[in-house]
């Protein structure tokens, strides 16, 4: 969407990023002819030295709900990860948190929606968000990042900002204003979070499972474009809330209970990050550990003596909050689907080409992804669902459906046992077999059953294998590594920040670049539709930096954020 696979740092053609079908294996296969390595030059008439001077490392920011990551492009980790907690909201000169024995009691609420409200920068419900305050808090965090951790000089640098593409406009405007004001940057490049997660994993298409703070988003990224998103509120906030509830119940059972000394946000988060874990899937073949040690937690701020809690109990919050294993499926609304079902639903909803590309490239990122066991659990659950259900959007046929399909579907789910060479030819057809259009559930009959008397959508009919196409595909993929078979496979991603850092280090131009002057004069309303922006160079003869037409210079777009 915003990333362009174009080597030119000056000119970009939108057409170049148009996805070509399955081009992850149709990519450039020309063996590298002998050539001199390319060099960059700053401007047309600039000398190399001047190009070197303008070669400032851009700043890469990832702005999330709870943490700000800031660093320089080309580095593998951010320089700092800062939170927006209540300690950051004190007045300057208020040093009482440094006093010995000081403890700020965290507010305990009995409501998930207001859980940890002091710790998050924004909420999706902007009615209760003071946007100016968001700006203030961001500004303070970014100034701390600059003056304490990054320590860069004050030359203007580009800023690469990674933001979720579904951020509200008002919030986006605030964030941009804060970044423009704090870092005196000439322009800001926006990169969608999920796309930069894919960049950080080295893939072009992926299913990005981002288990964040307020919500979990499952985004299908195909050829660097976000094409489908599902979200669920089962994420870090619910997890932390459940942990607090579990701990409070444990304390109550142990008889240590006082109304004032409830486990609050900070204690719950501490326990969650230190001892929280996630049970393996009940379908896993892994041996169950029978030893259940007792962890004795200590909350020096609340209780003097340690509190004993079984280690297995510390996996309950994840069980309840993320996987809803004790809730029946009928009680789950669309917005609080458990994670494995969410991933499955997202895979089911995308076209099968995309599904094939995505199911073998599942990236799990976000803060909760660091909880031990979560990733394995998701993959195993997903594997189990596919084995049992296949890619059938109908969960229950009732009397109408032929129950004889089920074993066949289950058989198809095990295509991963094919050898890769076999699978390369066969799996597209296999996947296409199992697809049926979710929007028209009446024509659930898939192409395999085209002989059935029910009306069949011609689009779903099994096309005969195109020999010519196969030949071309074969030619195109020659010399390339074999595309992975259509299996459930996880890819380790470096995360959105590192992806944005990779992107920035490659000096590509993004679609969304926001100029400082234009932003302050026009605001976000000045952004044009993506197709109105002329990314093509108008006159080649004037060289890269001069030939841009007037219209192309003044138009800018928000692309996916628009």
């Amino acid at each position: 969407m915003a990333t362009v696979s174009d080597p030119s740092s000056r000119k970009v053609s939108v057409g170049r990023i148009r996805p070509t079908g399955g081009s992850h294996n149709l990519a450039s296969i020309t063996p590298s002819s002998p050539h001199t390595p390319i060099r960059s030059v700053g401007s047309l008439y600039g000398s190399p030295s001047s190009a070197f001077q303008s070669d400032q490392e851009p700043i890469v920011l990832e702005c999330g709900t709870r943490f700000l990551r800031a660093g320089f492009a080309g580095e593998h980790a951010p320089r700092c990860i800062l939170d927006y907690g209540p300690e950051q909201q004190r007045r300057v000169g208020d040093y009482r948190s440094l006093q010995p024995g000081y403890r700020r009691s965290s507010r305990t609420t009995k409501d998930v929606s207001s859980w940890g409200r002091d710790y998050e920068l924004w909420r999706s419900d902007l009615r209760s968000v003071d946007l100016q305050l968001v700006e203030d808090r961001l500004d303070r965090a970014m100034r701390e990042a600059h003056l304490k951790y990054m320590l860069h000089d004050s030359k203007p640098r580009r800023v690469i900002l990674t933001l979720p593409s579904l951020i509200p406009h008002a919030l986006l405007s605030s964030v941009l204003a804060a970044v423009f004001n704090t870092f005196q940057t000439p322009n800001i490049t926006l990169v969608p979070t999920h796309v930069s997660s894919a960049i950080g994993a080295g893939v072009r298409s992926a299913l990005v499972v981002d288990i964040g703070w307020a919500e979990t988003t499952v985004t299908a990224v195909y050829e660097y474009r976000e094409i489908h998103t599902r979200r669920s509120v089962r994420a870090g906030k619910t997890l932390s809330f459940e942990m607090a509830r579990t701990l409070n119940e444990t304390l109550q059972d142990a008889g240590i209970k006082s109304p004032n000394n409830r486990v609050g946000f900070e204690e719950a988060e501490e326990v969650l990050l230190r001892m929280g874990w996630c049970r393996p899937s009940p379908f896993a073949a892994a041996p169950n550990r029978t030893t259940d040690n007792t962890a004795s937690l200590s909350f020096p701020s609340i209780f003097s003596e340690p509190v004993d809690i079984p280690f297995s109990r510390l996996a309950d919050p994840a069980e309840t909050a993320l996987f809803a294993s004790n809730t029946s499926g009928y009680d789950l609304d669309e917005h609080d689907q458990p994670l494995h079902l969410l991933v499955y639903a997202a895979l089911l909803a995308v076209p099968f080409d995309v599904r094939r590309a995505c199911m073998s490239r599942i990236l799990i990122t976000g803060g909760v992804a660091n909880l031990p066991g979560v990733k394995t659990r998701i993959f195993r659950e997903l594997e189990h669902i596919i084995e049992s259900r296949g890619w059938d959007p109908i969960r229950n046929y009732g009397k109408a459906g032929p129950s004889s399909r089920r074993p066949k579907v289950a058989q198809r789910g095990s295509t991963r046992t094919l050898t890769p060479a076999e699978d390369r030819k066969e799996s597209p057809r296999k996947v296409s077999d199992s697809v049926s259009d979710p929007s028209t559930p009446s024509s659930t009959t898939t192409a395999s059953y085209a002989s059935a008397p029910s009306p069949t959508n011609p689009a779903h009919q099994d096309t005969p294998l195109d020999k010519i196409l196969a030949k071309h595909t074969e030619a195109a993929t020659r010399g390339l590594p074999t595309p992975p078979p259509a299996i459930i496979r996880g890819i380790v991603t470096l995360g959105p920040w590192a992806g944005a850092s990779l992107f920035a280090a490659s000096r590509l131009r993004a679609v969304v670049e926001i100029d400082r002057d234009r932003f302050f004069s026009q605001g976000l309303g000045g952004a044009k539709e993506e197709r109105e922006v002329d990314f093509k160079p108008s006159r080649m003869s004037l060289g890269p930096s001069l030939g841009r037409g007037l219209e192309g210079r003044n138009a800018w777009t928000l692309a996916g954020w628009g």
Partner: protein
Amino acid sequence: MAQPFPYTFYQCPCQRPAPPGLPAPSAGDPPDAFSAPPLPGTPSRTSASASAPGPRDQAGAADADDFDPRGAREQHSLFPLEHLLYCDDCAALRCPRCVVDEILSWFCPSCLFEVPSSQVRADGPRCARNCYNCPVCTAPLSVVSLDAESQGLAGPRSLAPDAAAPPPAPAVGGMPHGPFMMSCGYCNWTTLDVGVQFEKATNITGQLARTRNGGLPVPTLREREKEREKRRELREQREQGGVIQEQQQQQHRQRGTTSASSYVVPQITTTSSPPSTPSTPAAGSETSAQLPPGPPPEHLDPALHFSNLAAFYKTQLSENASGGGSGTGIGASSLAGFDYNSPTSFSRIMSLYGTPTSRKAARARPKPWREAASLDEGLVVFDDGINRKGGEGGADDAGPHGVSSRPNAEEQLISRLSETPYSSTATLAQRALQPPSEHLVPSLSPPGPPSAATPSPLSYHARPQVLATDLRPTAPLLRTKRTKRCRECRHILHRLESKLTSTRPKIRLLALDRVPRLSLRALAADRPNRAVWSPAFPVQVVSQAAAGGGGGGGAGAGATPAPAIGSINSIAGAGPARPGCADRARLEPGVPLQLVLRVANPLFDPVRVQLASPPVAPGPVPARTTILCPHFEVGANTDVWDEALSGGSGRGPGEKGARRGGEGAGVAGGAAEAGKVWERGRNWTSVVVEVVVPRGVGGASKGGGIGGVGAGSAAGRGDEGEGEDGEGEEEDGSGGEDGNVLEIPVHCRVEYDADASTGAGGGVVGGGSHAERRAGGGAATEKRQVEFWVVFGVGRVAG
């Protein structure tokens, strides 16, 4: 609050979207609001609608009312006066937010060595010398030598390649020998706790970078990158050998496995040189040819992962640029310079002036780069335990074992966690101290001899340091010397001498020197030992000595900033200054309380001060506030030397008392009168403020401050019982810990006639809009004004 009651915060008027820009002063007579009797209700509203719009109102006149010092936004705009600068050209306060920082030099706070900027850019913002802090308690670590016997216990690891051979010689002479460790003098943490020791006492950073927790040596990133390049060259050579396609595919599949197997952790007995054997890729090719890329080897960490990806993208870009034939394919690489031999550059030059004959070629769409396909290209497959079945994925060296043979990294971590006591995990505070780039592979093996550690392939993405044994010593963050510039006019506001050891400022425009200091204290403290506000204090009875002593403490506030900070305490104490006692200042509801608001003038010109406050203080404690004399003058700060020479210390209470009596007109005698100044000194004037906390605030919860007020009452009860129970009230206060604190916002406007030529700095230069020449003044004087909001913290409402 952190500052003892009563405290003063200044609001920097920079938070407005429009630059605040002081308005041109009005004709000279004060606006009506300030000369009006201080009836509640009038001052603030009219002060905004009059000639001078308050600093907060960009929208309208009524805006001044909604200045709530307890608001969330105001926490970001209120500062102690000591933190503020003052821009003479803009004639405005400058807070850290409206100042641009330029870094002059970097230095380590621990060893005080200056770090050049290139090194900061390359190595990050941490000291690269031998300074390290304890990851547990942040105390500095010291390098100490290990004894021979303790070395035997700790295991024979060493980092340098030649370290294994010589047994540690006893320390002869002054120079300690043998392996070293870093130990914390405060909490007794040593690097042996995480299984790290050093061969030399110098170059700790380099040694630390080459070892993992647990003592396993790890090749540096550069070595691993070099090895990757070797493998790549080898592969390319083989591909150019004209092998047919099938073999190519096979080789592609080999990439991951060979690279994985080449990363076998070197045994301890071997040298710790990196496993850079170029023959390794060819070695394992026959056996594991069928395997797709396996799980990441143990040495794969985010740094190498990132480096693999970056190298892969770079090759893709360069292939694209040269092979795609686009005439504009420059600028892709980060290398600077211009190469005329490059085909792309050549075609671009050729098409520069000619007709665009190569238009078509230039328009040729570059092919999208492909995906990373192997480990060396940055593709790391998550080892989820599923792919291990059927020999299809996963195990590189374990082979097609059963499913349960080896749990993956997450399961290993869980089983490790279940055996770890809670106290052996790293706390969040400790994790926050670790630099984010330090997220290494968690050592699942207990620290100790690494022979006990079974090298298990891990994916590093169990990223944060969960266990205390994952913690690493942290180098201290560098500090900087900075120049501060005004964000509006870019004038330098503060600049130190460039010499590193010097702390002398070359330019220093502090707000302390430019803006009157306002402070608050009790009118009189009849019970100085309790140091509470005296609610039942009759106005007529004035304890002269106490009042004078309090005033004298801050007499030099304008002239000397440094003692002025200390003077807050003495004012607050108003008597025998006990450090923390003023913090316990309690306000009893329903009783009028008289406070003395003191304005000290640091300027060399007399100033006219106009004060205004909202009639009812906003926030959780709606106290009625009345400034008895809102409009007065403060004398110039000129004769400080006279006073110092004549009066000796200048702090004598008798002198103050005389001064107060002798000022004559306008000074109220024994009682606080409306419209009269309470006390007046050389460069300071004090007026009386009357505050009434309504009943029902302290006990009954009310309005916004429900939790805070309730907790405050609980704290108050505890405080009555025992005088020393000061911290109890700090800890309660759930919701808002300051929910029962009375804060009074006061709008302060200062006008003065400054000499245009000798005014403070560049008043002539930038004074166009906000300073006007006084007509008919004869001498070149100009009128200036500064206005701002001030917030006084008065005290906590007693329950």
